Every structure is written in C-alpha cells, then in structure tokens.
C-alpha cells in the first residue's frame, strides 16, 4: 500500500470521521436537548434529535460508505469516482454538522433554533462538491493505464535449468459473482420468461466473474468462469513473449471478453474480470491476448522462461 493509498483511503476519511464526532464538542454548553435537525421549506425547524443521535447517524453513514469504498478498491488505489463520492459525502456531512450546530447555538428549545434556508443548503452542497473534487484529484483522476507503460520490461522467473515449472493462478471479481448469484436466485423465485432471462444473465455474469490460467511446458490454458469452461489453449509456439500490465477495466470498455482497438493497443483481445495486474501474451500475426490474473509477474516469467528454453522468445 503506497502513500497515495494511505492518504486518500485512510488518512483523509479518518480525519473526516473524527471531525464529524468532534464538531459538536465546542458547542456543548450552548445547545438545546434535543437539537433541531430538520427544517421546513419556510426555513423554520420542524424536526429534532438528540445531539448524540445526529452524530451517530452521520458517523455511521459515513463509515458505511467508507467501508464500501475500501471494498471497491483494487490495485492499491481508490478509483477516482469512488473517492469523489466518499469525499463529497464527508464534506456534505461536515457542513451539515457545522450549520446545524450554528443554527442551534444559544437556543433554549429546538423550536427556537435559527432558520435554515436555501442559501445554507446551497452552501452545504457546495462544500460537498468541493470535497468531491478534492477526492477526485487526490485519487489521481481518471487514469487510462495502457500496457505500453510497462511493455519494455520482460518478467522473468527463478527456475533451475533441471526443473520444469507449472504455474496456476486465477482472477476473481468481487462484485460480479454476487450479481450473478442474485440472477440465479431471481430465476428460481420469478416464474416465466423474466425468470429465465435473469437466470441466463446470472450464468453469463458468473462466467465472466472468474478466470483460471495454467502455464506449463505445453502452453497456456485459459478457462472461463468458476467451472473453468469454456477453455482456450494457446500453444507456446504461438507466443512471442509475455508481459505484465495493470488492467483498468474502464480503459478496456468494461468487463468480460473485450476486443480492444485503441491507439496504443491496436489489436488485442482481453479477458477482464477485475481491475489490477494481468498477463499480456504478445503474439506474432495474431491479436495480443490479455487476461487479468493474480501473481501475473511469475506467470509471465514462467511463460518467458519456457519460451527461452525452446528458442521461441522474441523480445521487443
């Protein structure tokens, strides 16, 4: 985990959470109990809550979205849109907390609290938007990561000349299988055509939710889905070299089996099940094949070692 990760995903959200809890403290002696927490369209307070209730609610909401953001990360950074939403919420809640405290300060009962009009609402949303922009920038904006960034490097592996290596790994998506299973459940619960359609969609989602890759002296086998089928075998002599790259699904047009034709990746097929490291099989006269898989460094290294032994390795 790098500095950017600690900064964007841990330090700043933690500071926001602390701020939410701490803001009411300086106002403690000046607040009614309960405090006004909701205002009508005319600007007069029309709802109340104990101060600790408001703090708990805000902190719980923020923590929930924080945890979801952490779960949605891949490859050691928060996606810029995720960071933007989290920081927007943080800024918004802090602004809500401050304006609520200011409106309630000095009131004897919550019904005496100051008015809150559209101007304040606009201010609160404005603070949220500023927070969102900060999150977007801190997370590095939307980066398009293309393989050329790392293509000059040829991964290698430490393997004795007497040893034959077999490497196996996989790539698993975090969210897609949940959706896929939901589709299957829906197929059981919902009768008729809709249920069947949802079931088929669920199966398709499960198929793109995982991938399994086996590398051995006979070549590379890629199996789709939890069941590893359909599978595809690529003999070693079709491969020129293997590289490691960071796959950003948004740059590939999304998840699943992608035909990639961008300026830098002129002709490639990609099996994208998640964000993060993948292996790129560079092939002469055929489209490159990219697959998102864990431990990609050693997998690509073994492919290159096997190619080297057979005299098939073509470096750049």
């Amino acid at each position, binding site marked *: 985990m790098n500095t950017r990760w600690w900064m964007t995903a841990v330090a700043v959200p933690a500071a926001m959470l602390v701020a939410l809890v701490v803001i009411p403290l300086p106002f403690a002696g000046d607040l009614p109990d309960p405090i006004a927490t909701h205002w009508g369209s005319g600007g007069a307070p029309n709802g109340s809550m104990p101060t600790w209730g408001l703090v708990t609610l805000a902190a719980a909401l923020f923590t929930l979205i924080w945890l979801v953001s952490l779960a949605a990360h891949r490859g050691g950074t928060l996606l810029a849109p995720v960071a933007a939403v989290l920081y927007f919420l943080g800024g918004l809640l802090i602004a809500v907390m401050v304006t609520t405290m200011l409106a309630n300060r000095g009131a004897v009962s919550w019904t005496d609290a100051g008015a809150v009009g559209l101007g304040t609402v606009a201010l609160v949303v404005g603070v949220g938007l500023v927070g969102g922009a900060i999150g977007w920038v801190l997370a590095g904006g939307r980066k398009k990561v293309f393989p050329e960034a790392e293509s000059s490097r040829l991964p290698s*592996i430490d*393997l*004795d000349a*007497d*040893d*034959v*290596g*077999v*490497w*196996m*790994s996989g790539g698993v998506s975090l969210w897609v299988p949940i959706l896929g299973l939901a589709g299957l459940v829906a197929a059981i619960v919902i009768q008729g055509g809709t249920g069947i359609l949802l079931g088929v969609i669920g199966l398709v989602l499960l198929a793109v939710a995982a991938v*399994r890759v*086996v*590398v*051995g*002296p*006979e070549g590379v*086998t890629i*199996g789709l889905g939890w069941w*590893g089928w359909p599978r595809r*075998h690529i003999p070693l002599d079709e491969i020129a070299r293997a590289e490691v790259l960071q796959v950003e699904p948004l740059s590939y047009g999304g998840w699943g089996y992608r035909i990639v034709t961008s300026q830098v990746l002129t002709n490639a097929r990609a099996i994208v099940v998640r964000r993060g490291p993948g292996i790129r099989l560079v092939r002469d006269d055929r489209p490159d094949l990219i697959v998102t898989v864990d*431990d990609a460094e*050693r997998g690509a290294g*073994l492919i290159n070692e096997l190619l080297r032994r057979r005299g098939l390795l073509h470096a750049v």
Partner: protein
Amino acid sequence: MLLRLDTTSDAPIYAQIAAAVRRAIADGELARGDRLPPARDLARALDVNMHTVLRGLAVLRDEGTIEMRRGRGAIVVSDAVRSGLKRLVGELVAESRRNGLKPTEILALVEEELR
C-alpha cells in the same frame, strides 16, 4: 502457485508429481488450505495422462498431505514437510549458535553438506 518438477529424477512421473507438491509445501509455495489445480489442467500443462496425475495425487492423499473431495478438487491439509524441515533447521541453528558459530559459518556447514 508454482509447481516445479525435477527432470533429472529417475522416479516414475506420478511420483515426480507427488514430489513436486511436497516440494511446493516445503518451500512455502503451498500452505494448508490451498487448493491444487484440477488434475485435468495439470495433466494438460505437463502433457501427461490424467490418470498419471490422479495416481500422484492418490499417493499424497494416502500419506495425509492432501484431501480429495468430489467436485472440490484436492486441498492441502498437512504442511508437515515444511514444519518438520523448519524444526530441524531451528535445531541446527540453535546448536551452532550455542557453539559460537557465526551465521556465515553455519551456512558454510550447510553448503558443505549439500555438495
């Protein structure tokens, strides 16, 4: 997960496959609870008959290294190979230290034995 098969070995292929799994456990490549690749995938990667792979896995199952469950594949259930070796190395290091050997001297002893 990386399995390494020693091509200089004279042992039959099924025994080499079993040895490769033990070796992976010994050097920490595989830990308890890890799942082995499906026999079919292993056979394809090594270009051997699937029954040869299954025979190797049966050896590992009979010695209590893996468990095989229908539909779930083979799972490593014992890392006795690794823990046994670690214990012996621990004893070697402790005994050497007690006798005043420096780390490089301990390594030299091990290297001498490996020749």
